[in-house]
């Protein structure tokens, strides 16, 4: 009886060694290298943030790295702060100056409420297309960084009727900004 127990212990140790340490499963050296890279990726404490910004009548995208967070709202906050500050945006002429992000609130209806300072309205001086593109950039920046059904903009924590007098801010943005814009090109004179 006293002999059987150490033998059993030895056998189980041998089986464990075979399955967990010795067995190679045919993996090549390069596969080991890839898995090491993936490990580094996990260890790398940065995450990609996508920012959509208006330029003339188009929307352009930049991607920046930010400190890794598992809170999608924090990533969105970084993205929107970056959009309004415009530090990494090549051409920020379509973005009103001195806009501050005051807060983000995620509703039970999956609508993200984006609370911004009144400079967004005060310093906006564009035409109808510029206003639509700015609203679209806020919407796209949010939905590409977190899971949100819709986006609603608040000015100084209150509901505003419009940003630049052409489109409603009273309602969430999706219905306005996701409609395809039909442009019939430039009709040249002469």
């Amino acid at each position, binding site marked *: 009886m006293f002999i059987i127990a150490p033998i059993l212990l030895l056998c189980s140790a041998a089986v464990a060694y075979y399955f967990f340490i010795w067995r190679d499963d045919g993996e090549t050296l390069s596969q080991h290298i890839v898995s090491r890279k993936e490990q580094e990726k996990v260890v790398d404490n940065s995450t990609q943030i996508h920012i959509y910004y208006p330029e003339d009548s188009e929307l352009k995208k930049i991607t920046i790295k930010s400190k890794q967070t598992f809170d999608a709202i924090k990533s969105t906050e970084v993205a929107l702060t970056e959009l309004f500050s415009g530090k990494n945006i090549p051409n920020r002429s379509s973005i009103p100056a001195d806009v501050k992000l005051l807060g983000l609130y995620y509703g039970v209806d999956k609508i993200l409420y984006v609370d911004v300072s009144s400079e967004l309205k005060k310093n906006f001086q564009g035409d109808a297309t510029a206003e639509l593109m700015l609203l679209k950039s806020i919407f796209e920046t949010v939905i590409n960084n977190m899971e949100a059904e819709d986006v609603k903009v608040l000015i100084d924590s209150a509901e505003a009727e419009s940003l630049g007098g052409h489109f409603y801010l009273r309602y969430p943005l999706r219905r306005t900004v996701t*409609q395809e*814009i039909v442009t019939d*090109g*430039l009709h*040249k*004179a002469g």
Partner: protein
Amino acid sequence: MAKINCLIIILLIALIDVSLADDSSIVVRSSEQSGMIRIVFETENESLISQASVFESYSLVKIDFNEPFNYKGGALLEPVKIYKKEDSLFMNIRNLQKIKFVRLSSPPRLVIDAYLAEQKSPPPVNTVQAETKELRHLVVMFDAGHGGADMGVRGEQFKESLLTLSITSDLAKQIAPKVQKAVLLRKEDVQQSIEQKLTDVGNTRIDAFFSIHLTRQKHFNIYISKMPAYASSKVAKYNTTLAQSAYIERSRALANSVGQAITNGTKLNVVYAEIPLPLLSAIKAPAVMLELPEPQTLSYNAETIDTLAASIIKALMDYAKR
């Protein structure tokens, strides 16, 4: 005796207050002399006049006094309208060609001589009647974009809200004799919400709607409303915010006619776009938003207004023939 002394002191303080308040008051008077209107701004405060800067753009004259003042108004002739905004006065003068101004003292005053363009003699009545016969039944509405605190596009010498107010007012005056009625949605420099505008539009039967705005681009933008895919459904027919869906083809035709006439008249390029504009979407008539290039690109003098008015009349005639 003490009571009387107190009363005298209070009266003196009150008098000093009144005199100080009056010091920054500005009154205005105007007079007309053969094609010229003289507008005089008078005050007791000499620095108000000496620091004042005067800018002119189309029919708009901006007087920047660079310090707070109390505008008390005064007698003004009909073609002149004055609005106060912060430390400035904005003057709209119909048919303004150019201005000259001079600062005078004792009492300190700013004298602005506004020279008006000669009114062109209208073409023979029978030709006009024949050409615009189709328009006699039309009620056309003009909306001057923005207003009040919502100033829209701003330049050093212009504000979209005031410039569009002046342009729509002139367009309506030129177009009114050719149509049944030309109506202005906004007559003063006041802010109107989109919903307020829609309520006002709903109170009038209209046959065509033009919303006039400015753009920073060097070309004209002509917009009609982009209707959502579900706009043609039965349910959407009862949705007042999508009332434009029944008129969208006619709006498209009107936009094309306006664009062609403007391209021919101004020799500037035109870009057409369909975007979901809530104001146009809810209008029960052919509706077009026209964005004009800012004054650096196109000078809004009497000739330009004539061209724009002629373009809109031509477009309405083309549209009416269809």
